[in-house]
């Protein structure tokens, strides 16, 4: 198990290397440059070239990449062009908000999506099923910025019980959590329902029932464990998605997270922040995927057995 874990961790290295090459080239090959954005339309050619020199943008690209890579390995992602603060500091400053939001969003998605799916499957082809499916479909289809604005209108203006933006208390997180989680919630609900329907018809469930075990116990002991496997896969995949999609939520609710940091940096052509931020995101998604794989093993004894056999 540990060997497997280390092996998977090693796989992250080429992935991150690839991401670094990709993001470095995209950022540097895109038109425009940070010196011009910073100095604005009134800058003279001389001022622009001075600043380019200061920022180290006049060196050949491969040299710049080399410097970037060596510094990154040392844990130094450079300084933001816009704010002059160390990129690592900026990322660590912003990451807690994003992580909190993503975790809360995922909890919301699971806590609402899972029961919804189970309920729909247990009451298959009744109005309950239809309602749950409709709810899931709507949740998946409506764009989340719209949900955000509607919630804001409802809960901050018509019934003013929640603050519409900011980052001061737990109440600030309620609306963003819903907005961020709603799509994943819908996917989880659909996934749970179909997975349930499959498992319910399995021989071992019928056997358990035939033994006279109560419905509730069959559900908890024999069905749920098996239902969880595809659900965990989806949740893992969507967690990465959520980290990426957090930008919209952060923007609508003015939450100072990593997504907004990167988008602002892209606008200002703040190379170091874009590179560092994207690399950090890639690392997070990689780690989440790894954790999902490990979770499988915990949930499914068959997979654990495979690791053992491999040893």
């Amino acid at each position: 198990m540990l060997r497997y874990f280390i092996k998977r961790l090693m796989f992250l290295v080429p992935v991150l290397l690839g991401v670094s090459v990709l993001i470095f080239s995209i950022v540097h090959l895109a038109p425009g440059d940070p010196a011009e954005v910073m100095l604005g339309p009134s800058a003279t050619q001389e001022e622009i070239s001075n600043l380019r020199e200061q920022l180290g943008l006049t060196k050949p690209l491969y040299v710049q990449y080399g410097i970037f890579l060596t510094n990154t390995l040392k844990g130094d992602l450079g300084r933001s062009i816009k704010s002059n603060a160390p990129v690592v500091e900026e990322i660590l400053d912003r990451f807690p908000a994003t992580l909190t939001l993503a975790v809360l969003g995922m909890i919301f998605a699971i806590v609402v999506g899972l029961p919804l799916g189970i309920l729909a499957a247990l009451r298959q082809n009744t109005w309950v099923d239809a309602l749950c499916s409709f709810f899931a479909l709507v949740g998946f289809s409506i764009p989340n910025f719209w949900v955000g604005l509607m919630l804001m209108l409802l809960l901050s203006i018509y019934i003013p019980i929640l603050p519409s933006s900011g980052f001061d208390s737990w109440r600030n997180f309620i609306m963003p959590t819903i907005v961020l989680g709603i799509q994943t919630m819908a996917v989880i609900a659909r996934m749970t329902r179909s997975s349930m329907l499959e498992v319910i018809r399995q021989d071992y469930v019928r056997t358990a029932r035939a033994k006279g075990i109560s419905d509730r116990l069959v559900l908890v002991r024999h069905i749920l464990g098996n239902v969880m496997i595809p659900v965990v896969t989806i949740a893992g995949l969507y967690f990465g998605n959520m980290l990426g999609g957090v930008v919209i939520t952060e923007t609508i609710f003015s939450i100072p997270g990593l997504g907004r940091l990167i988008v602002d940096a892209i606008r200002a052509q703040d190379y170091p922040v874009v590179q560092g931020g994207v690399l950090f995101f890639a690392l997070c998604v990689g780690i989440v995927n790894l954790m999902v794989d490990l979770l499988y093993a915990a949930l499914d004894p068959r997979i654990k057995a495979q690791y053992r056999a491999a040893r």
Partner: protein
Amino acid sequence: MKKFKAFAVITILALAFCLPASAAELRLAQVADVSSLDTQKVSDVYSANVIRQIYSNLVQVDENMEIVPDLAEGWDNPDDVTWVFHLRKGVKFHNGEPFTAADVKYTFERLLDPKTASPGATHLKEVESMEAVDDHTLKIVTKRPFAPMLMSLTRYETAILNQKAVEAAGADYGSKAAVGTGPFKFESWSRGDKVVLVRNDEYFGGPAGVEKLVYRGIPEDATRLVELESGGIDLIPGNFPYQEFANIEKDDRYETYRVPAMSTLYMGLNTEVKPFGDVRVRKAMNYAVDKQAIIDAVYFGLGAPARGPLSPVIWGFDPERKPSYPYDPNKARELLKEAGFADGFDMTIYSDNRTERRSAAELIQAYLAEVGIRAQIELMEWSALLSTSAKGIGGAFMLGWTGTGDADGGLTPVYHSANIGSSNRFRYKSETIDALIEKGMATLDLDARRKVYAEAQEACNEECPLVFMISQELVGASSKKVQGFKLYPNMISPVHKVTLSN
């Protein structure tokens, strides 16, 4: 039960924390959070607004953009290139250090040091030498007579720093520390979210009307509005979404603010691209576009047709000026015919992605089509538009110009031929315009200087290497309890006189 009690206590505490702020706290929302509070490292108006509350300058502008004393009580010019500033006595920085001429010298030297790589260094580039004559007298000598000096000294980039504070904070200056002599002291900055300032009771202009300022960055227009409506913020100082302004102006729960902006929107023409080298063609294009219609359609009526190259709130604007070229498609057709383009020609308009700019470009396209000019629109990233147009773009380009508040800053970068290749994006050389701009820069007598600029504006208008478009308007809004707020045309509004009523 125990758990429930704990939960209840936590809930009540949490609720208590998010109760509306005390009356002495003014909460403002801008489009973005500050990027730094190091005056010499920033180039955005959002940082400038916060900087304005923390720091003082030698001189400042009032709400009419006239120069008023700040840290300098007075100044005189022994000759054309020498400026002697008499500094206020007994002023203290927020860290307790006394303010002296040495601080001014340090500040300006830091700004000019290439190592600082300040985007604002350009404002002092005419400075030859500086000398702290005594603790309260500073002498500045310029390389040549430089009349825009005072306006340069009102810029946020030239706000006065304290050497000890800057050196003590090192690279963290501007993010963890910011020390000035202004009405508010820096308290904290949570990056991407908000800056908190507290009142400086020893401010030489008298203590401010509120105890605390909270500047928040809220990028979404809709969110900013909802926050104002729900009472989460008190004031949106500028950058109020245009499309919502008409509604809020009618709503008596809010106070609204309108003021002409320093910025003008124009469509520049690269005069090296055919047929923009022909002044008749350029004039025809100016006559062909109905500016008022674009203001009404795109800017919700907030703005006025440009009256030449400068906005009416720029120092040196000639108040006698009429709107540049009235809408007259017949005259446009005549001029085109005269220039040999009776059947029109093909051209490209470059613009960035902003909805308003793009819509304006589309309307211009339609108006040009009326007189036979076939324009196509090409969209570019903002930074790409800036750099491509500086090097010479393949047609016309949508751009705005803000300048420094002085006629020199509104004309020299854009029209002087020395700036071809950078900010003179028309790539247009006129000896008349060059000479007038240089004369304006060197004339220290204010009345004579105004006259020179009146001529310069007329020359730019006549030779029109651009299509004059719109003098924009700034709009802001606040809740009714905000009293005494004035929106400044440069979008940098001091708030130390603002009070809050219940």
